[in-house]
């Protein structure tokens, strides 16, 4: 693959159209507000404060939700049990985001990761250790919560996720 040119976009057979006037219009989402019921998050946040992870469980389909959910969609009922969770998890899926650093202008490659806590049925977006190179992330990579020093009962108490040694990585499990 030639790296020289690295064209930004490909040209194509274009047809241009006469340009008529434009009338302005705006959609001020700033004059909108979004109402949420976060009552069910309270006990979850309290547990975060003393560095414990908890998720709620729907007793009808035995699915565990972390972060907790207001309604289990599968059974259309409210989850009624709380379940304590270990602080280890795995990378369930990831992508690399190319952000232009405003000062230096060079392109930063940062993995944005979806983490699935152990024995839990949902994943959520979280941060990895800053110096993990995006080439090392793979699906199923085991990770562990890195708690912030001072926790004050919100999602930022989970500062980021650390890498755990994964000895099954070299085993080539996928059969050819």
């Amino acid at each position, binding site marked *: 693959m030639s790296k020289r040119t690295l064209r930004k976009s490909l040209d194509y057979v274009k047809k241009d159209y006469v340009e008529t006037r434009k009338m302005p*219009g705006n959609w*001020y989402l700033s004059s*909108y*507000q979004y*109402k*949420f*019921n976060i009552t069910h998050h309270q006990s979850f946040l309290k547990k975060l404060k003393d560095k414990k992870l908890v998720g709620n469980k729907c007793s009808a389909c035995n699915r565990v939700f972390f972060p907790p959910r207001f309604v289990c969609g599968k059974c*259309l009922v409210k989850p009624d049990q709380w379940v304590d969770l270990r602080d280890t998890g795995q990378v369930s899926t990831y992508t690399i985001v190319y952000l232009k650093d405003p000062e230096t202008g060079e392109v930063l490659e940062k993995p944005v990761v979806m983490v699935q806590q152990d024995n839990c049925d949902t994943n959520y977006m979280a941060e990895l250790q800053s110096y993990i190179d995006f080439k090392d992330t793979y699906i199923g990579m085991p990770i562990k919560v890195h708690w912030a020093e001072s926790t004050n009962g919100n999602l930022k108490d989970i500062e980021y996720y650390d890498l755990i040694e994964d000895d099954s990585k070299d085993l080539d499990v996928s059969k050819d």
Partner: protein
Amino acid sequence: MERVGIVGYYQVKLYSNANYGRYEMIFEAVRGALDSAELKKKDITTVVSCTNDYYDGRTISNAFTVEVGGAYLEDESKVEMDGAHAVLYGLMRILSGNHKLAVIWGGSMASCFPYHSARLYETDPTWERPVAYVNDITASGFQMRAYMEKYNVDIEEIAKISVKNRKNASKNPLALEEAQNANLSVNDILNSEIYADPVRELMVAQPCDGVAALLLAPEKQALKITDKPVWITGVGYNQETYYLGDRDLSISNSMELAGKMAFDAAGIKEPKNEINIAELFEAYAHEELIFSEALGLAEKGKGSELNSEIDGDLPINPSGGAQGGNPPCATGLIRIIEAAKQLRGEANGYQVKGAKKAVASGQIGMCAQNNIVYVLEGGD
């Protein structure tokens, strides 16, 4: 047209600033509707929702309502007009034979968005929107003046409609607190502030927060689910042109055509004599007169002579109508629910005696550009 039964419904109480989360309200409506018919999630075969991207401030306003709306791994779609149009799409899905139970829910929270700006986005963006002289407020003023001039109905007659509807709303526990007022007089209405002359503030159906849900089932299933199904025997919907200048605002052409289509389907020759209750979505007091005349419940210009009180010859909006609370995307759905309540004899507090055939309507657009009418029969 085969009969399709309304087998369950639920309406969340209307608030001007609800202490509810959006998904909490949708879940309460859909779960309430299923519980009212003692059904479970697995009985659902299709869900039709009614939300509007500009009322919810989200681009795909039904992307996140899948779980709370009971549409998890179900055949789902969204109609972006009035709740009554979503019931129409649910009705079509049942009549096609592919589905056995349709959940239809609709509603939004007017406390969360600038209502009149969202309505302004409906205007012609190349001509009328930049100067914003045409919006839902001025359009209501044009409509009322055109009606009063054409049939020289004086303003007291129109104010009586608001007195009636707000008195009815005071008996309806789910209506909007601010809209309930049992002892208003015609002068109170006329002395309320000018909204868009000649329309006064108390003649307007105030937008509020609310979600409602309804269950539809084909005839065989409906008889199994409930012993008091309400049958939809006729439906008609129509849309007239957009430009106010091209329309005769004193009548509702689209309501006439929609009414004709619905009455033909239901086999009703004489609406005035065969219909014994009407729940019309009247965004403004004068629209109740225009619609009752368009549906043939009264002669043109003579709508105000009809005794439409709860104990009158043809009660209109015993539930308080849209002036009892107008949650965007839900009001038309609520009119159908109220009509079904009357036919099942469950409208305690404002029950009309011996209601056999009802008419319910929904509308969308400036000066009710698109109207939809249902003929409901049955009950006990």
